[in-house]
């Protein structure tokens, strides 16, 4: 018990109600986590330093020089909101993908849809993922590409995205929104608190004893 109380204290989490900043649009459907962070960069025992390898193989040539990619475009340096297409983050469950996104400097992702494991991993790290319609994404993309300095605000609390004088509704599952706005996005403290109930559930299952 003492253990989790101390854990809880360390885990006092920020309430994430809205995220604001410049944005960058990375086009494409089914952008998988291998593309977000190629497997060879997972040969590490900490997540430190993963940011520089974000989208590495589509951003860099074999000799390390830059390829044409929105993240290499100086107009979008400093972007903190990542925008993309359908089924973003599909494939491997590697948390290295959202870790690289976070460490690169992104604090929210808006896309037409997300793969489930990626979505869960992002929420657990306090990165809101908001789903927008294709039409709204194109509107947002056009605004960002016309003026890369425009501030985009992901209003987690109210399921809306604001930019310039425009805004639209996004969808964020209730459980994820609750976790973000109440500062419970890292579940460890809540899970530890259920210790007695865990013992009861496990006790009713024979295979948990072996």
């Amino acid at each position, binding site marked *: 018990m003492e253990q989790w109380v101390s*854990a809880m204290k360390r885990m006092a989490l920020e309430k994430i109600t809205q995220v604001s900043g410049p944005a960058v649009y990375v086009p494409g459907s089914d952008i998988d986590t291998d593309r977000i962070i190629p497997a060879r960069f997972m040969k590490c025992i900490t997540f430190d330093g993963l940011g520089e390898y974000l989208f590495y193989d589509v951003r860099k040539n074999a000799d390390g020089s830059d390829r044409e990619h929105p993240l290499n475009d100086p107009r979008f340096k400093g972007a903190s909101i990542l925008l993309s297409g359908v089924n973003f983050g599909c494939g491997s469950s590697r948390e290295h993908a959202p870790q690289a996104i976070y460490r690169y400097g992104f604090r929210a992702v808006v896309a037409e849809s997300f793969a489930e494991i990626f979505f869960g991993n992002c929420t657990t790290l306090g990165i809101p993922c908001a789903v927008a319609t294709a039409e709204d994404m194109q509107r947002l993309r056009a605004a960002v590409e016309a003026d890369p300095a425009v501030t985009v605000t992901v209003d987690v609390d109210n399921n809306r995205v604001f930019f310039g004088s425009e805004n639209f509704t996004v969808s964020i599952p209730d459980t994820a929104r609750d976790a973000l706005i109440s500062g419970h996005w890292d579940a460890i403290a809540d899970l530890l608190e259920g210790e007695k109930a865990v013992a009861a559930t496990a006790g009713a299952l024979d295979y948990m004893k072996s």
Partner: protein
Amino acid sequence: MGKTLFAKVWDAHTVRTLPNGQTQLLIGTHLIHEVTSPQAFGMLRDLGLKVKFPHRTFATVDHIVPTDSQVEPFADPLAAEMIKELRNNAVDFGITYFDLSSGKQGIVHVVGPEQGITQPGTTIACGDSHTATHGAFGAIAFGIGTTQVRDVLATQTMAMSRAKVRLINAEGKLCPGVYAKDVILHIIALLGAKGGIGYAYEYGGNLFDDMSMEERMTVCNMSIEGGARCGYVNPDEKTFAYLKGRPYCPTGGSWDAAVDNWKSFASDADAVYDDVVNIRAEDIAPTVTWGISPDQGFGIDSTVPDPANAKSENERASIAEALEYMKLPAGAPIKGTKIDVAFIGSCTNGRLSDFREVAKYLKGHKVAAHVKAIAVPGSQIVDVLCRNEGLDKIFSEAGFEWRGAGCSMCLAMNPDKLVGDQLCASSSNRNFKGRQGSPTGRTILMSPLMVAAAAVTGAVADAREVFEVRELAAV
């Protein structure tokens, strides 16, 4: 109203409802490997926490192990460091670890069933998206991220939202030369890479009933490629026969009690599903991918799609991007596309029956001179079983390199990588850009026998023609 297996397992493992409305779900079995666990143990140490149920946590090393020689020290110091880290963590936290010297090491999704750790009616989690494989036994098995690995280590639970259940009902008999891999590639092409988001897939109907356990594993393995978080087949006599006598299964009187319990988890006849999709086995051809997403697949006799014929701008852009990367001309037949590398292995198709079925036809054939072909057993035990039957020799004599156990060229975290824009005929599960280790490397997914056909002809081929396949697979 009847319940699905998913609902029964979920309910039996529900601890409580969390403040945000998610379920705190008990994870009965936790499988870990060297790539996604070190950071989790780091977090555990930072929080001063221990592993809650070390006897329900099992580790092995698979992603980064070299397959040409498993003798240490490894040439790659980072790989050596990761193995050392896992060994230390297993010792420090009292976890069962199937090390390279154990004779039981292998791909975590091959090892779990092989050891009888994977059991019906249980929940399983692993920091790897192909954990769905274990659903073949009627387990609910989730791939998770590293922070969730920490959660399961520390509490044996994780926060989850309940999935809907889609029944994929398949009836009929497969044509000769069509395998479980073709079935799942067909399903993914039909329903899309994101078609399963929000769903658990229940694979039902006589096609899946008739499959062996290893075939069911192949199908469940790729549920994630269809967007489903997990997939399963209801446990039956085949499941119990496979498990009986395995090291981590109950014995004596507890065996009968366990079987009775396992049976009770199967979906009820009147279970209600959120969605049902019907498939006819006869409609499935040997299936190959042509693009950079596992749902970009079609029958071997098809021609590469033309972006000009796309139904939407999104589809047009996807096809164009895929063809540019794959260097395939629109409208060309996929058959005859020259390959450079052939890979048989992975958690999808690296089991005894996979090598047995290929060996049956490969005997007397030679790999084309320009093709590098490797066969990688999914575990050290699979390796031994293959060797006992002389299968390794059949592969070697045909020109395949017979390797040691590991994930190998499926994700190329070890030295087995494509070079430049090499094209690989692969029995693995993902054809993503760069997946097999070269940023410009290209992958065509297919069944193991189709890989063998491509290896011997040097180009994508129809195994039914190359090997005169006339009989139904009995694997």
